[in-house]
């Protein structure tokens, strides 16, 4: 008998594809972002159906929540900077329709090829299942995804945090000066809402971090939820970054990377190599790393949203000629 959920799966899959097309073809950029956010949340639902709640959490919080906020912020800036709505949207050199059609046909062919290759690949083929199952007792945590992220493939995860660090350094170097897009006045309702919502978000973020050792959750999801606190603070102007906060911000950005790398180096010795945590302390070390990484992720994501290094206005130097 067919699973009654198949209808749900099919509908969801159709909706996801339709949303992807809609997001790329809708004229209004604001609508594009709204459609994208819905697309992301539906993808997260699809991943839940594929028994990947960790991925669904990360996608919902980071891939969709933070990315959507970043896109909105940029759109807000574009419309403010250009003064009117449509001026900034016209491309410098319009691409000829013929070229676009050729491109689209080319992509269609590629997609077909990929689909054929996918259908030919073994379903539920070989994987790491047995290896992970065998190594889990020595990992120091009970949740396999956390074990992979922070122990088996901790090197990848360290480098992922490095990517985040590189991003915030690059963003600070690209954008300079104070924000020129004025923030709108917030009504009392928003202030009240923020006051109510913030503690709840902090609790949930911390909970996700803590629960990561044995259930879906962990540093990235917790960090992203905590970043939402930063977003709210920045949006409601409850916190305005000041130039003299830069040192602390820098410290928070590098905290996760630094502690992670230091732990990885320091455990080496006595026959162990880097990243090889001693079994007795594995859980403690992993929690330490996760905690620091969570702080870094939360602050970094919020800083990426804010976008610019807080510099005093007089220091603004233009290098362009």
């Amino acid at each position, binding site marked *: 008998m067919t699973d009654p959920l*198949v209808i749900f799966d099919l509908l969801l899959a159709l909706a996801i594809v339709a949303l992807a097309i809609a997001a790329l073809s809708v004229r209004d950029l604001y609508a594009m972002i709204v459609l*994208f956010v819905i697309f992301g949340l539906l993808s997260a639902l699809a991943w839940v159906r594929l028994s990947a709640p960790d*991925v669904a959490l990360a996608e919902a919080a980071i891939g969709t929540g933070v990315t959507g906020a970043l896109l909105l912020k*940029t759109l807000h*800036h574009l419309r403010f900077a250009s003064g009117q709505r449509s001026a900034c949207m016209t491309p410098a050199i319009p691409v000829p329709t013929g070229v*676009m059609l050729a491109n689209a046909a080319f992509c269609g062919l590629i997609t077909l090829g990929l689909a054929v290759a*996918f259908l030919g690949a073994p379903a539920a083929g070989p994987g790491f299942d047995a290896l992970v199952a065998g190594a889990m007792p020595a990992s120091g945590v009970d949740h*396999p995804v956390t074990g992979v992220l922070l122990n088996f493939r901790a090197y990848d*995860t360290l480098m992922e945090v490095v990517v985040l660090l590189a991003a915030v350094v690059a*963003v600070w170097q690209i954008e300079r000066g104070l924000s020129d897009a004025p923030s709108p006045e917030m009504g009392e309702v928003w202030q009240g809402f923020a006051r109510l919502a913030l503690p709840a978000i902090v609790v949930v973020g911390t909970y996700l971090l803590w629960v990561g050792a044995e259930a879906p959750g962990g540093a990235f999801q917790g960090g992203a939820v905590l970043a939402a606190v930063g977003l709210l603070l920045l949006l409601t102007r409850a916190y305005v970054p000041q130039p003299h906060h830069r040192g602390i911000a820098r410290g928070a950005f590098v905290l996760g990377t630094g502690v992670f790398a230091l732990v990885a180096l320091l455990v080496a010795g006595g026959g162990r190599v880097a990243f090889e945590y001693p079994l007795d302390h594995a859980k403690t070390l992993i929690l330490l790393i996760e905690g620091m990484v969570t702080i870094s992720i939360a602050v970094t994501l919020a800083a990426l949203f804010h976008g610019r290094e807080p510099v005093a206005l007089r220091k603004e130097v233009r290098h362009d000629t």
Partner: protein
Amino acid sequence: MTPDLIYGVTGIAVFGIGLVGALCAQERLRRVLALKLCSVGAGFLLVVGAWREPPDTPDPVPHALVITGIVVMVSATAVALALIRRLQTLEAEDDA
């Protein structure tokens, strides 16, 4: 029809749609979004590869990889958007 088949085809379709957008989209913001769609498509492929018929639990390694991919992608998006914002500021100053 199992979920992995359905969502695998979905993922490849999303990747292809993102590809079309990345090559054809004219607004800068839309191109960033198209790239994000590509990354979601790639995520689908990995999550589908990890799926096992219940009651078996899925392979956790691809899940970890996709989480890494999501964080990497948000970093890249943030940099691209910062470039777009800065460029827009400079261009608007020149017009004024």
